[in-house]
């Protein structure tokens, strides 16, 4: 080993009395995910009842434990032991490829024109570019079931809106910088809206609640208005939807 051991990865950083931040990587990369999901699974079995929560993200895994059952140093030792033997998962996330039927249209994707203008593409090219790639879920956050996916084609890169919208309708498909997402619930949001998916992204009655998990693969499939409505999609235009 060379270099400064204090900066070597992976490393554990204090995240309060009952948490360790496991920093595995420096940069965002799809190749990070099978390592992060593998460590998350192993923490579940190694910590058992003493595990409170796990929050995987682009380059890290936050491990929250019960500080009555486990001291911070014992928790640290458990994680360190797991890291020594860690092998990446063969399948990331659930190993599924999700196809999200998406109605790309200015009525439900009011930023299509803005993105076209910003990128110098036609609207049709923007749609084609966004729907032709398979994306990876890097993290869930912001709202229940909200999946940060990427990376989108660099030609599509577009900054967030200067002023976020107060309410983005459920199912809205959006891009910002090199990432894409679909809004599981109506929330405020500053991403560029391209269309709407009929997929139910978050369902409290469903086993596992969230359609998408960290590591999953996702494709947006362009569908017609008729097909979108047939699948239960809501075509209420953006203005009326608020």
């Amino acid at each position, binding site marked *: 080993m060379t270099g400064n051991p204090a900066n070597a990865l992976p490393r554990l*950083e*204090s*995240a*309060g*009395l*009952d*948490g360790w*931040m496991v*920093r595995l990587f420096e*940069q*965002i990369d799809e190749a990070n995910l099978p390592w992060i999901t593998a460590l*998350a699974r192993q923490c579940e079995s190694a910590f058992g009842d003493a595990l*409170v*929560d*796990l*929050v*995987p*993200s*682009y*380059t*890290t*895994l*936050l491990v*929250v434990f019960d*500080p*009555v059952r486990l*001291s*911070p140093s014992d928790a640290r030792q458990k994680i360190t032991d797991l890291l020594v033997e860690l092998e990446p998962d063969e399948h990331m996330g659930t190993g599924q490829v999700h196809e999200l039927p998406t109605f790309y249209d200015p009525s439900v994707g009011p930023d299509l024109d803005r993105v076209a203008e910003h990128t110098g593409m036609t609207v049709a090219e923007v749609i084609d570019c966004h729907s032709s790639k398979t994306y990876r879920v890097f*993290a*869930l*956050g*912001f*709202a*229940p*079931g*909200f999946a*940060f996916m990427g990376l989108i084609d660099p030609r599509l890169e577009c900054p967030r809106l200067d002023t976020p919208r107060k309410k983005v309708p459920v199912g809205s498909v959006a891009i910002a910088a090199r990432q894409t997402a679909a809004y599981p*619930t109506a*929330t405020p949001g500053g991403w560029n809206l391209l269309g709407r998916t009929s997929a139910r992204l*978050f369902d*409290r009655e469903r086993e596992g*609640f*969230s359609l998408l*998990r*960290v590591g999953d693969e996702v494709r947006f499939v362009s569908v017609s208005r008729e097909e979108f409505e047939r699948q239960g999609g809501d075509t209420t235009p953006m203005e009326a939807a608020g």
Partner: protein
Amino acid sequence: MTAQRKMESAIRVHRSGPLALLQDLGRFGVRHLGVTQGGPADLYSWAWANYLAGNPWGSASLEITFGGLQLVAERDLDIAIAGADLGATLDGQPVPLWQRITWKEGQKLAFASPVSGLRAYLSVRGGFAAEPVMGSVATVGREQLGGFDGWGSKLADGDRLAIYTPDGKPAEGMSEAPDDVRMDFRESPVLELLPGAQIGEFTGRSLYDAFNTWWRVDDRADRMGVRLLGPKLQCRIGSLISEGINLGGVQVPPDGQPIALLNDRQTIGGYPRLGALSPLSASRLAQCLPGQEVRLRACGSGPVLEHYRCFLAGFRP
């Protein structure tokens, strides 16, 4: 377990007030889905209210913020109120806090406005009853989760609140909290902060300022987080790749004003952090009114952990 217990309507909401939320311990094992923790912003007072009411750890209480709430009992109830003094009265008579009392059928329990602290916890013997969503009744309006209706809705005038019928046996344990555990939230607290990984990225001057300033609580303070006003803290890194944030995490956005993140925080975020408040210091901060002053003190985990374990040992089975 809880499903077999009998639920009955026991309280009528006369005036819903600005903010009264049903809170059990919170929602756990779902943060990887982007679902926030929820639960009592002041765990300490919530635990005492339930304990004094004779309820087991984890029972649901009402977290009453600012005051304004008025409730009428529809039958005799044993209750306890702990946490903030919001000038509560029973049919106009001041209600003693931090002890078990009887709330008679027909009496109106009214919360006025903050005298000391910001959030009062009302526990009813038996516990408030609601159907858990994702394992908890904790109310998070933003996520449309929890509460009496399961959709995170606010209370409305005329609502009827259900409780689990107590077992009929007299409540065990102490009925009155010792003086030394009752908090006076008017004092300016010193909050324990466990330094985090980015603390070395702050300038020397900023680190001095961070721990030697009386920070003023901003108006921008809610269950997601509390912003502190004071000298501008400077960090050599402007943002991080988003990562999980634990309860009490103190993040510093580019404007240099720290924000301590509480129960309803977003699950991931990308600002550098000074570290994390201890759970009991996060509880204490949640009782601070805008304008109140607080200080941060850097601590090692040893004594803080001992103190926290000692607290939990008194309440948790």
